[in-house]
């Protein structure tokens, strides 16, 4: 494609930009020489270059540079001060936290015994141990049933079955409990993580309470209850150990439970959601009774 008066501007532009080959450049210059009236335009193109003002410089380049400093470099010194302050406050807060150990059962038990007032209903469930009951210090292991609910797939049309697991290692059994969270059909995905899936029903609590005062088995039963570990000869020690075992179990179960009930009032069905810690109260009652 040759240069003409229709397209000369693009050629002049390419010449000025350096986009042309040597032959094309010679062709454009010859065209400009043949058309003096266009030569001024070519000169104007060559002057259309912006020239940077070298006097315009970014002052204080040091503010942009990075210097070797501590572990963390923050853009502004005030940021560093603020970060250090936050870390110090956090460290002090952590150090000032009261020490609490979930494994220290007896310490917790003592605290809760004095702090929590057992409800009247719970008191009625646990018979008090009188001096007559304490005559025989040979204690029987409470034989409470324990069951876990095995959830079947929803695709399976068969009804859910509660599988009774006889725990040979553990002397305690749980009754099957239908998950109230599932019954309520509400979105409890967050709560479910914190709430234990196994709930000790009130009837089980009654059974535990009713069995405890009748503890009068011989030492062989006690040995079975305590994972076949040999017991010391002193019977006082056996009693204490059993109490601790029961206390351990109830302490584990003393996590907060979520109860969801449907309450019908004036032809309206309402969901009653209750977060409580009855296991802890139960344990306190039993501990006080023993």
């Amino acid at each position: 494609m040759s240069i003409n008066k229709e397209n000369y501007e693009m050629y002049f532009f390419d010449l000025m930009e350096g986009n042309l080959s040597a032959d094309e450049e010679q062709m454009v210059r010859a065209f400009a020489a043949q058309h003096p009236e266009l030569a001024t335009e070519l000169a104007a193109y060559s002057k259309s270059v912006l020239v940077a003002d070298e006097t315009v410089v970014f002052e204080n380049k040091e503010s942009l540079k990075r210097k070797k400093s501590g572990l963390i470099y923050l853009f502004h010194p005030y940021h560093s001060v603020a970060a250090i302050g936050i870390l110090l406050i956090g460290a002090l807060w952590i150090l000032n936290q009261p020490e609490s150990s979930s494994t220290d059962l007896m310490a917790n038990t003592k605290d809760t015994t004095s702090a929590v007032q057992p409800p009247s209903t719970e008191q009625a469930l646990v018979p008090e141990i009188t001096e007559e009951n304490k005559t025989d210090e040979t204690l029987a292991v409470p034989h409470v049933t324990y069951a876990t609910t095995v959830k079947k797939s929803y695709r399976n049309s068969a009804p859910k079955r509660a599988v009774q697991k006889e725990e040979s290692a553990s002397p305690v059994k749980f009754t099957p409990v239908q998950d109230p969270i599932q019954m309520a059909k509400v979105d409890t995905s967050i709560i479910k993580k914190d709430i234990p899936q196994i709930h000790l029903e009130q009837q089980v609590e009654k059974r535990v309470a009713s069995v405890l005062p009748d503890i009068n088995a011989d030492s062989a039963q006690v040995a079975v209850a305590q994972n076949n570990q040999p017991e010391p000869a002193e019977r006082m020690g056996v009693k204490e150990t059993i109490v601790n075992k029961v206390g351990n179990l109830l302490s584990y179960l003393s996590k907060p439970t979520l109860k969801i009930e449907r309450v019908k009032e004036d032809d309206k069905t309402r969901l009653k959601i209750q977060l409580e810690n009855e296991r802890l109260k139960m344990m306190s009652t039993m501990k006080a009774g023993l």
Partner: protein
Amino acid sequence: MTEKEFNNCVDSCSDGLYRFLVKNLKDRDTAKNIVQSAFEKMWMKRTEVQSERARSYLFTTGYRLMVDEWRYQQRFSGLDAAADHYAEEVYAERNDVKRLVDRAAEALVPEQKAVLTLRDFEGYTYEEIAEITGLNMAQVKVYLFRARTHIKKFIGSREEVL
């Protein structure tokens, strides 16, 4: 990119980026802020940015921040007065031809002006300009052609200069 390479980049690139931004924004304070932001972003991304690509990264970041600033300025007409004041300041200091070119460039649309300054100030190729601005190469060439044709006509109308 190491700390030393970053600091070397500050020495070699900050002036060019600052001039590019001042020319297009006509506001030195805003240009300074954008330069600081661009270097800050590059420091944050120093593990990903190679030293030989640092200049391109800075201009790309600076261009994007400048576009944001253009959009912001469009909402406030009061900023135009400050820009005009800066332009008069610059023209008074330059000789005649350069002053005419600068004045002609002020009339360009922002995208054309940005492409022209990248080409003339920094000597970027069409491909590099396309990468920085996000345009394709054909658009870059068209913007450059329109910008130079506009300046050529502006200069040609003042015969006394030529």
